């Protein structure tokens, strides 16, 4: 289970890294856009990793709260960054 969890997290990380490279090439983002995306992504992945490991060790409450406390703020940062910085950037790039 743990091996599968780390493999999936690796795939997600690599896809996210490639997505960010693509984003940076087609959009001229503000200097703080990429750090915010990275921070959000790291928090989301950390929460998933925490949650998965807590489930494996048999502590579902730790799993749920880990996802809530770590992935939650990460998702919020990603959503706000996407809405206010990434999406407008793509829109401008289309024009």
């Amino acid at each position, binding site marked *: *289970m*743990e*091996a599968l969890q780390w493999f999936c997290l690796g795939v997600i*990380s*690599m896809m996210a*890294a*490639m997505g*960010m*490279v*693509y984003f*940076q*090439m*087609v959009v001229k983002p503000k200097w703080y856009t990429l750090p915010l995306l990275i921070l959000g992504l790291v928090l989301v992945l950390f929460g998933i*990793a*925490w949650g998965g*490991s*807590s489930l*494996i*060790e*048999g*502590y*579902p*409450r*730790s799993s749920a*709260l*880990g996802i809530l406390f770590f992935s939650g703020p990460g998702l919020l940062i990603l959503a706000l960054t996407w809405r206010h910085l990434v999406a407008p950037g*793509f829109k401008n*790039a*289309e024009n």
Partner: protein
Amino acid sequence: MNMQDKNTLPIQNPDEDDLPNISRRSFFKRAALAGTGVMVAGGAALAASKASLSGSRSKGIETIENFKPKDQRDVVLCYAVSPKLSQEVYPERNEQYARLHNKEFHFNYDIQTFEHKLPPDNTREGYDQADRALGHASWFPLIAAKSRAQAFTQPNTPLHSWDQSDVDAEKYEFGSAKRAATMIRSAARLFGAVRCGITRFDKRFVYDPMYDIIHERELYWDKDFPFEPKSVIVIMTPMDYDNVATSPSWTAEGATGNGYCDMSKISCQIAKFIRGMGYNAVAAGNEMANSVAFAIQAGLGEGGRNSLCLAPGLGPRVRICKVFTNIDFEDAYDYPRTWGIADFCESCRKCAEACPPQAISYDEKPGFEPTYEFADEPGYTWNNHIGIKKWYSDAKKCFNFWIENDTSCLNCMASCTFNEPDYWHHWFVMAINPAMPRFIHYWMSEAHPLFGYGGQSGKPVPGKVERFWKSGKGMNTNKSMKNNIGTAGIS
């Protein structure tokens, strides 16, 4: 097609994508760079974590000037099991404790029925026949070896014999002190140790005089001990996470008794190993010296609020034993280290809150003398080794609860924020701990029970006893690709 065209090939069909096209080559180049960056960042984080888990050098235990070794007769367990000490030499200690706490209590009379006083209650989780049988079974090897008394600080028991007649005539040439230390650590690992450190023999932390409870007489290092020790090998043995979590139930006695058996087994094996190489060695469990002090000096952990040695990755969930030897490890001695654990304890009071008799200090900072209730009563702090900078617990109250509970208690161990299962996220928290500010320490200590760990009180945490009794499920095989030895068993 020339090179310029190749570099500007569209990454996708331009008809389906309104975004500007980027060159495939440039994209993969940058993606490779980003991937390398992620791996370097991961490697740096791992290296930083490893460096943090190594700890940094500390000054070790602080003591006042003219600090004297502790008289073993002042150790609560020694005093309680010795009829002479309890009834003849210091009878006033019983009277004072009973008077101040307004209860009928006698250290020696009450220990006579310890762990046999109350009948099992099969309707009560953690106090039924199986729980009682587990506790008794866990101690059985030591009882069979006539060596359980070492737990009550009796020196020179059969497993921890002072006899040196089997020291080999030929001294083994280690080659170097470092190789000697590594060989002994390797043997300790083989025999079941989870940590092993080596420190110099320090007279401050031994019991002097020692006390032979069976023969009711004092023993002196210079007169009675068979050789002049130069070094102390300090060994930690792991305790089962799930079993400890059942504290203060009778079930938790399983981890205690088993821990003592491991201590005796490993330390006597190491002592025999050393004697077989031509050097003197004597194994010890609770007897002869303060195990926590030597573990701290050997760099195995830090002294916590609960008066235990807290080791990174294990917390207080260990038992400590020692081997005294005349091997000189020269430049291979370990040194005291810090991982920010004692700093953390200043913000965390989980052990104190979980202690059923409230024997643990709530003071923010450690001090050089006890501050607990009745500490200013003349003679009441007889059991404390005053002059060490630490948090002072009232071990008399702790022992009193053992008697009332009819088994020992591991609440301060189980509730400790550093007592975690053996998974990466707990190690991660340990690694970042030294860099965390005080308010984060406080938050971490609050998050520990909130997340479902610890949370002990006067009664066993509901479900923990049953969780332990299920922890052996599926032990015929292991599908987890990990041997969770000494940690949570369910996977």
